[in-house]
């Protein structure tokens, strides 16, 4: 348990044009200055420049082109379908993932290690293989008699399949570190099992759940391989945004595809920043 340590305030030399460093932070030396520069350059080439390029491409048709693309029924329904499916899958993951993590950490049963291994498989599989697996089970000749091919439910199931580990793996280590005394203190103070979970355990899991949810949502927004095979990508019915973009690109409509990309980018940013705020609010208390 970390006691509050007061870091001795180092006398920092005030340098012109620079904010004073927070206490405990050493000023950058020449070596780490170089490191910072390289990291910035690396991230710029890898992430920032391509993003900027997409944003620029998306504006090539002007505002009218932007609006035209978005009001296209196939595009708008693809975006709505994608976002709703991603939200639904993430919502399920928040509950189911926490539950699975709980069982893995708190229960002792035969096959626990095996189950723990199984959880990572959907994540580790190439997504197209995941698609094939789903087709084999829920395709036209479903061996279990459940045919989901070419339905929206298929998209939901595919997303659940590939995003299964995110919340589980985020929550599991936090749950393992929880002090069992806290729950016993709650019990001794008269709280029932539900009250102990909701009031004492869950608040400590929120940052981890939020982090897992952010990953799950981001992955769902962009998922292609596992979804496209089983959904059939029927325009305006079972076509997700990534599939729509692919067909736009195949039709030489790079600008249109970029518009969809920018919209997805903005939505992802909003959700991830939102979940980040949840995490920070919870972390501030720790």
């Amino acid at each position, binding site marked *: 348990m970390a006691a*509050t340590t007061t870091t001795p305030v180092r006398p920092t030399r005030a340098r012109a044009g620079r904010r004073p460093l927070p206490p405990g932070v050493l000023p950058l030396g020449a070596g780490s200055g170089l490191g910072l520069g390289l990291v910035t350059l690396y991230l710029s080439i890898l992430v920032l420049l391509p993003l900027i390029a997409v944003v620029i491409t998306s504006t090539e048709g002007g505002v009218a082109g932007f609006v035209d693309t978005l009001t296209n029924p196939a595009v708008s329904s693809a975006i709505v379908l994608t976002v709703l499916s991603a939200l639904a899958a993430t919502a399920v993951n928040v509950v189911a993932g926490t539950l699975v993590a709980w069982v893995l950490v708190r229960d002792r049963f035969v096959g626990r290690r095996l189950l723990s291994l199984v959880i990572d498989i959907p994540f580790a599989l190439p997504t197209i293989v995941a698609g094939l697996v789903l087709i084999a089970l829920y395709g036209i000749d479903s061996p279990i008699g459940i045919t989901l091919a070419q339905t929206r439910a298929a998209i939901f199931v595919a997303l659940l399949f590939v995003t299964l580990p995110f919340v589980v793996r985020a929550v599991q280590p936090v749950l393992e570190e929880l002090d069992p005394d806290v729950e016993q203190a709650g019990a001794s103070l008269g709280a029932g099992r539900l009250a102990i979970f909701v009031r004492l355990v869950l608040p400590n899991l929120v940052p981890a759940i939020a982090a897992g949810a952010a990953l799950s949502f981001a992955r769902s927004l962009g998922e292609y391989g596992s979804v496209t095979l089983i959904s059939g990508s029927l325009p305006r019915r079972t076509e997700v945004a990534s599939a729509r973009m692919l067909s736009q690109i195949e039709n030489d409509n790079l600008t249109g595809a970029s518009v969809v990309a920018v919209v997805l980018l903005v939505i992802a940013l909003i959700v991830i920043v939102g979940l980040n705020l949840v995490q920070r609010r919870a972390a501030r*208390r720790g």
Partner: protein
Amino acid sequence: MADAQRAAGIRADGISKRFGDFVALDDVDLAVPSGRLTALLGPSGGGKSTLLRIIAGLDTADTGTVVIDGQDATRLPPQRREVGFVFQHYAAFKHLSVFRNVAFGLEVRRRPKAEIRARVHELLELVHLTQFADRLPAQLSGGQRQRMALARALAAEPKVLLLDEPFGALDAKVRKELRDWLRRLHDEVHVTTVFVTHDQEEALEVSDEIVVINHGRVEQVGSPNDLYDRPANEFVMEFLGPTTRLDGRLLRPHDIDVFADAAPGTVPAVVQRLQRVGFEVRADLRRTDGDQQTFWVQLTPGQVETLDLAVDTPVWVRPARRAAVIEPALT
């Protein structure tokens, strides 16, 4: 004693508990009188914490019964035992403010808001944390956290207060302060209190009664002075303070009188080493008759000066008149 009074407090009868092959408690009986401050004292792994947890319902005994305040609690879950429990490592609810921590037991009992506020403020005043009500536990020192945990345990007016090594995680100075403070608090609140400790000084200083537990058994029960002056066996004697051996008899090193000249009942010895520790001088002596046995005596610097002691000084010693002595076992 009236029956009503005897019924109050805590009774544990025939408690046994095993963890695999390890016997943590072996048919232990315990009676804690109502309104007193009782210490369960013993070495680590002796079973005292397990006994406390069984009373609280946090562990279950393999056999035996627990009666709290006249009510059979053996099968009650911890929620319904009306026990306040304080953990060694505070078990603070890290995401809740000090106020909400203390209020927790009242909130889950759905007491009216106004009542909760009044009760929590009263308790925070009692533990001197009023100005920290809005802080988070992480912003408190260890001693403050433990006081918060104490207020939290007292909030719902438990029948008994149980403390498991409450000062074990604190540094020596804070431990001493909290010890005095717990004693004063108990004198104010009068709730039946049991605390577990492995620190004999803590037990001697704070408690009304001490139960010495070792290897899953009760070695002796009594007031601090009883135990110190009339230990039942060598274990209790050794655990409660320093001991030395003279003529095969176990006694306290401050219970040996030292003379410059022979006196009735004395035996001759010679000083081997003198070491001053604060206001105490440890004198290592060796007998110059019989088996040349070594032992040590606790003296004051004044005594050393009066006797003019130095290494190789010959002296005569004998047990003090009221010395607590454990005679050698007859074999």
